[in-house]
């Protein structure tokens, strides 16, 4: 489903964040990308999520080569992924429901159906009773759950998360990881970048360990 072959990302200035990385992630897998800070985890997540484009090598997602894809086709490919960002990227000028509705507005889903789906997503992460709340009033864990609801509302085939528990206390982090596990259980491919080995021992996922941009 996701096949990387000598995947490389060089940023302007000549810094190689990811160097000739090759791997395969099958449909329904749960994969953790680990490594120290600056190892290239975030860049790899961005490459898989079609947020960044490779500078060398190839990355096939559902048979589509990201390197060869036209820029105008990228938005449509991105819709296959549910992205949970390190900084959450929650919009604080709208309520919880409207945050979750955004991906559905992007794909042009009729309002009634979109609200129904958003409510289901919020229910899945335990935030249905907060749908009218402003995200500023949510705790850190709740904000991360909101980000997950927004990521899964479009029913993506791949859920990508970059350090989703980085800023959370142990209890909230456990809740978040349990939510990822529940999506994995129903067949969603889950790719999580984390530096916390505790979760690897607990969920025993496939692991891609990065060291200075290379697979260790």
């Amino acid at each position: 489903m996701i096949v990387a072959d000598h995947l490389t990302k060089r940023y302007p200035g000549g810094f190689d964040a990811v160097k000739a990385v090759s791997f395969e992630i099958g449909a329904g897998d749960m994969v953790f990308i680990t490594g120290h800070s600056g190892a290239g985890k975030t860049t790899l997540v961005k490459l898989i999520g079609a947020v960044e484009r490779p500078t060398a090598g190839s990355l096939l997602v559902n048979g589509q080569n990201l390197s060869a894809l036209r820029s105008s086709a990228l938005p449509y490919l991105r819709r296959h992924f549910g992205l949970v960002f390190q900084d959450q990227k929650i919009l604080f000028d709208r309520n919880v429901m409207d945050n979750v509705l955004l991906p559905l507005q992007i794909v042009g889903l009729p309002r009634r159906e979109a609200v129904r789906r958003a409510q289901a997503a919020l229910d899945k992460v335990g935030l249905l009773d907060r749908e009218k709340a402003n995200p500023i009033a949510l705790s850190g864990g709740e904000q991360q759950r909101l980000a997950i609801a927004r990521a899964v509302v479009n029913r993506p085939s791949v859920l990508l998360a970059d350090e989703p528990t980085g800023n959370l206390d142990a209890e909230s982090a456990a809740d978040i990881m349990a939510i990822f596990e529940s999506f994995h259980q129903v067949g969603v491919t889950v790719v999580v970048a984390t530096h916390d080995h505790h979760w690897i021992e607990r969920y025993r996922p496939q692991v891609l360990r990065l060291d200075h941009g290379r697979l260790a």
Partner: protein
Amino acid sequence: MTQHGAAVEGAVRRLLAAPLNTLLSLLVIGIALTLPAAGYVLLDNLREVGKSASGVQQISLFMAVDADRKAVAEIESRLGQAGAGKWRFVPKEDALKHLKGNEGMAEIVASLPRNPLPDAFIVEPADAAPEKLEALRQTMAGWPRVAHVQLDSAWVKRFDAFLRLGKLAVTLLAALFAAGLVAVTFNTIRLQVMAQAAEIELARLIGATDAFIRRPFYYFGALQGALGGLLAAALVAVAVRVLAGPVAELAALYGGAFILRGPGLVDAGLLAGVGAVLGWLGAQLSVSLSLRRFG
């Protein structure tokens, strides 16, 4: 359609979200459109005056004072043959009676030893083209016992030239203010893009197309421009309403009846349309430049 509806809804929400900013922007756009719109309304009214004046364009043919009935009959016959249009004969007696009826003229006319006025024909030519009128005037002047033929078309030409000059001036003014409207929209949208940077960045990351991101700004620009256009139409209508009375009074003092015409529904629609197109253009320029930093 769902996305277009959502974009329009978003644009309306943004307009309502900052009512003071919206009001000020609308005022700037409205005033920018009011000046050329008022110019066009003024020219339109003047054109109407010109039309009604040239519509009754006349050639006055004066017989020699001592011309007899036979000479008059001869001219009548020639007018028929020349296909000059409609005419009426004004006998010198009727002319004197009419003169006498004018205020202050009765005594003067009474003091005259004899009627100094000639018989005359008032001709309303079938073809009012200036060159045709001039040719007809020259033909008539050559007829026997005709003392003078008067064609007052010079003022029509001058008036026409003035209208053309006015139209050009208003067009230049309109172009200038149109650029102003585009600039106002450009700046408003640029500020909006900056204010919504987080949403735009997120939308891009989760699969929004360029069109999805740009659309609400386009609708915002168009909506703002259209409302500005309607405001301009309202301002011109109010101005016309205020001026209509004094203008009618002035026209009455010159013995005429003139009603100042304001912008109609079609004009208001046209102004709103022009405002919308210019607003859309300003938004397009602004969004194209402002979104570059989002990659």
